[in-house]
């Protein structure tokens, strides 16, 4: 590593840095492909892209252990990929094939994976928070040193469930890591039009939950904050709240004409693209060569090709199984 640093930022470790970049790239390219496949009508229903917010999922996942749990929203492709859910299974899910991670029953908004303790994929805003509180309660009652990471958007903060869950988690000192992805909009509603107090951390502290704002466009900052918070939670300190300040580069869903924000604002945020800024920083520190990037792109592309092939080769669940997963008897049979 060169000793002459143009930037004031801390020195980074090459392998881990390239890993973080690789993870963000996997998500970015995967979702670009999803958008393409949506237009090609291979993917249907609602499709919510995470593009622009990759640093949050990637950074937070670095702080989680294999037996920790994750609860996410309908905008969860990035979280699933960063958590290690099979890209093929995710793609097959969006195709509606039975090889999908939810057997094609959930689709884009409901990715589930028992192997990685990925509890979905919840399409009711705020609906995942009580699940996270309960998962954490189970861990605490069974004396396990686990963390449950709960992802939700800033729009969910207005829901009564946010209030009830912050209080319950704090009151019972439950090991929940609340990860609020503040991308400034809930569909078309800007934070300032939905909250009388827009300092979300201040809200969290009103429940005596420690809270920190984090630059959600900086994967290193996200990882650092997540490591610190997860350690505190794991140590039994009760819940922790992190506000990740980020931005959604794409439309809310595939049906959104984006009348509520202007191009300049979007462009300004794209200047802070978590992948680009991180690449620049790595190059500054001499940690990234063109060849590295080329390799990462190739790997990502290859992974996506395999995922699409897997999904295409997938099969339709037989109609006789329609009601199979309503109750466990059926699921077992």
């Amino acid at each position: 590593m060169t000793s002459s640093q143009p930037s004031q930022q801390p020195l980074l470790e090459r392998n881990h840095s390239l890993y973080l970049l690789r993870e963000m790239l996997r998500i970015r390219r995967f979702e670009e492909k999803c958008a393409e496949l949506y237009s090609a009508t291979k993917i249907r229903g609602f499709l919510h892209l995470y593009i622009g917010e990759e640093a949050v999922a990637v950074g937070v996942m670095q702080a989680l252990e294999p037996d920790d749990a994750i609860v996410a929203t309908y905008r969860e492709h990035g979280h699933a990929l960063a958590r290690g859910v099979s890209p093929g299974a995710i793609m097959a899910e969006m195709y509606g094939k039975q090889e999908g991670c939810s057997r094609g029953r959930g689709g884009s908004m409901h990715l589930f994976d028992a192997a990685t303790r990925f509890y979905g994929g919840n399409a009711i805003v705020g609906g995942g928070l009580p699940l996270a509180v309960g998962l954490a309660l189970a861990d605490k009652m069974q004396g396990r040193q686990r963390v449950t990471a709960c992802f939700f958007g800033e729009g969910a903060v207005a829901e009564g469930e946010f209030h009830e869950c912050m209080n319950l988690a704090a009151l019972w000192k439950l090991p929940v890591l609340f990860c609020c992805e503040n991308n400034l909009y809930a569909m078309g509603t800007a934070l300032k039009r939905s909250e009388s107090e827009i300092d979300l951390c201040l809200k969290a502290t009103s429940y005596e939950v420690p809270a920190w704002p984090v630059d959600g466009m900086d994967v290193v900052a996200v990882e650092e904050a997540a490591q610190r918070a997860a350690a505190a939670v794991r140590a039994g300190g009760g819940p922790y709240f992190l506000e990740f300040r980020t931005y959604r580069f794409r439309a809310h869903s595939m049906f959104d004409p984006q009348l509520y924000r202007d191009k300049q604002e979007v462009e300004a945020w794209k200047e802070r693209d978590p992948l680009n800024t991180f690449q620049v920083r790595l190059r500054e520190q001499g940690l990234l060569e063109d060849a590295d990037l080329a390799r990462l792109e190739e790997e990502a592309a290859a992974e996506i090709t395999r995922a699409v092939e897997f999904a295409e080769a997938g099969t339709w669940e037989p109609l006789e199984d329609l009601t199979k997963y309503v109750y466990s008897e059926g699921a077992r049979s």
Partner: protein
Amino acid sequence: MTAEAKTGRITYREAMRTALREALQRDERVFLMGEDVGRYGGCFAVSKGLLEEFGPERIRDTPLSESAFVGAGIGAALGGMRPIVEIMTVNFSLLALDQIVNNAATILHMSGGQFNIPLVIRMTTGAGRQLAAQHSHSLEGWYAHIPGIKVLTPATLEDARGMLWTALQDPDPVLIFEHGGLYNLEGELAADAGAVNIDKAAVRRPGTDVSLITYGGTLGKTLQAAEELAGMSINAEVLDLRSLRPLDTASILESVTRTHRTVIIDEGWRSGSISAEISARIMEGAFYELDVPVARVCSAEVPMPYSRHLEEAALPQVRTIVETVRQMVGSRG
């Protein structure tokens, strides 16, 4: 065919919007409130343009707080306004159910008739767009169980255009369920189309051999089925309930008395759907008129699967309606 001069082509979405605009123009007390009804233009673009026309005081974007803004609609109605509350979809209305069932439906009664609640709540309902289990409920028939509210299901352009104003004139809470599959329905509507009654069922197709009773999202499929049946020289009558509470029992019994055979088509889950209530009322009011038992074509009892082929199998389809009727008429004599 109505003369060109007197009619125009319009979609269900536009008919709803026209009705909203008219209501806002005719009555100063009317205002629209809900998530993304303003800047976003409505999650299904129904209210698009109304913010620009009527301003943010009367086209109110709300935070994600279903219980608070539905309850605020009840309070505003008590305070002399004529609120139209939009809940994006019936799926999220469950978060506001306490306000609807315990306040909107009870206050007139609990106050001994002192306080009525002239409130209209609109929401999208139904499946068919691969939105999976949390975004595909058809609960309008379920809501019809609650005394104190009225439940409307506009299934035609005339009703999309005409039911809102009549509902606003009603002194009590009226819920309007708009099936998501209908918004793009296009057709001719009389330029002077206006308010319509909201308490009578309508015969959409007269017939003699069998009564097909339905409402909302399944009216179109039922009319198609009737066409196919006509080709098999089975002359089916199609009755559109239009209102699920109150239910127009008289019209139901009249039709059954004409045809002596009945099939009820209902997108709700079979058990405990409004189709059960209709069958029970026919049992009680026209038992001796029946040549064969009343049959039901409903949704399979499964949370809606994402995968298209499974979703289609879960929902009432033209072919299932046709088959059911053919078996029934086959079992003639």
